[in-house]
């Protein structure tokens, strides 16, 4: 292993397999360049030198193990579940016509806390992209769905009203004879 003085003070050196020494005799190396070829952050218990060359086959850490399948996943911790619960229950309340279905804010908060606590034990294996898409669908549903339901209900109500027939209107009189 050849050694030389590394005068590169402005940035990483490419010449990392030949570490130099500074004036006080310590070896100078560029950790970033020595780290090249790493993939997936292989730092968990192997203790390998980061300067090792890439071998044959798939880069380490990219195998579809259970752990890596769960990567790039979203967490419930970052979601505002309380608002989602409030909206879902409000919609249910409107659709079913049962005001009891609506949640109060304190109830939604308690439910959110409970869900988040349980979710710590069950990793959500869904990517952030899918969470965002689902949230978009949900938001569209809450904005347009409630309006659609309201419009549909109004139409149905107006359709079920019996037409006014002027012939049915008679003057009421207590002296009128009993019918039937």
């Amino acid at each position, binding site marked *: 292993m050849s050694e030389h003085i590394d005068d590169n*003070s402005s940035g990483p050196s490419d010449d990392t397999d030949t570490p130099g020494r500074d004036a006080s005799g310590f070896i100078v190396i560029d*950790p970033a360049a020595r780290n090249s070829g790493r993939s997936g952050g292989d730092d968990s218990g192997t203790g390998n030198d980061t*300067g090792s060359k890439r071998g044959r086959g798939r880069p380490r850490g990219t195998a579809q193990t259970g752990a890596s399948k769960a990567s790039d996943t979203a967490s419930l911790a970052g979601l505002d579940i309380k608002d989602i619960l409030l909206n879902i229950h409000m919609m249910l309340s409107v659709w079913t016509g049962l005001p009891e279905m609506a949640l109060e804010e304190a109830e939604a908060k308690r439910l959110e806390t409970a869900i988040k606590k349980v979710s710590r034990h069950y990793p959500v294996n869904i990517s952030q992209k899918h969470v965002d898409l689902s949230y978009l669908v949900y938001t569209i549903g809450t904005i347009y769905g409630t309006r659609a339901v309201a419009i549909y209900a109004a139409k149905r109500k107006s359709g079920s009203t019996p037409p006014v027939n002027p012939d049915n209107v008679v003057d009421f009189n207590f002296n009128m004879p009993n019918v039937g």
Partner: protein
Amino acid sequence: MGEHLFRFPRDDEHVAILGRNGSGKTQFAVWMLSERSWDRMPWIIINSKGDDLIDAIPNTTEIGVRSSIPTSPGIYVMRPKPIDYPTLDEFYQVAWKRKNVGIYADEGYVSTGFPWFRACLTQGRSRTIPMVVLGQRPVWLDRFVWSEASRFAAFDLNLRDDQKTADNMIPGYREINLKPYHCVWHDVKIDRTLILTPAPDRASILRRFRERARVQHKAL
């Protein structure tokens, strides 16, 4: 090369990164984080200073100080305000119970003396809680950081007290005339001291985060 010079920290090892403001310690720490195991376990950054390099890391999820600790792998950023500092020990308590979570504390001094912070440091090896603790003033850091860290990165330090403290842990620190953004790296286990050249630039670091996230996404 028959001998390994620079060994990257493992998930059962802690790293202490020291340096005055502007010495390059955050860039170095974020670069190290870009290579850590956030594809296999959650890593939580306590970004007390609101560092813009941390804010620029792609695909992070923000969590509150009192949020539960996520189980999914990834990088999560917590932004405690000074008023939240006393409650940070609750977070360390939850992390200690939770296990398998990496912690990056950008201002290590705010946790000095916290019992659960110390528990994470002392038992992090068995509970797989790797910690990266940064500090501008080594004299303010908890003593357990010094006793439990197995890697030290010391950048330029202004004050003599701090230099002396660093010198106690890193043999020969005061004799070294560090160039800008260089650091002294000490591997406690093998008792080896090296000088590391500057970490990659900001764009390269962020690119590395994106590349690894893409690889993981494809693997999914």
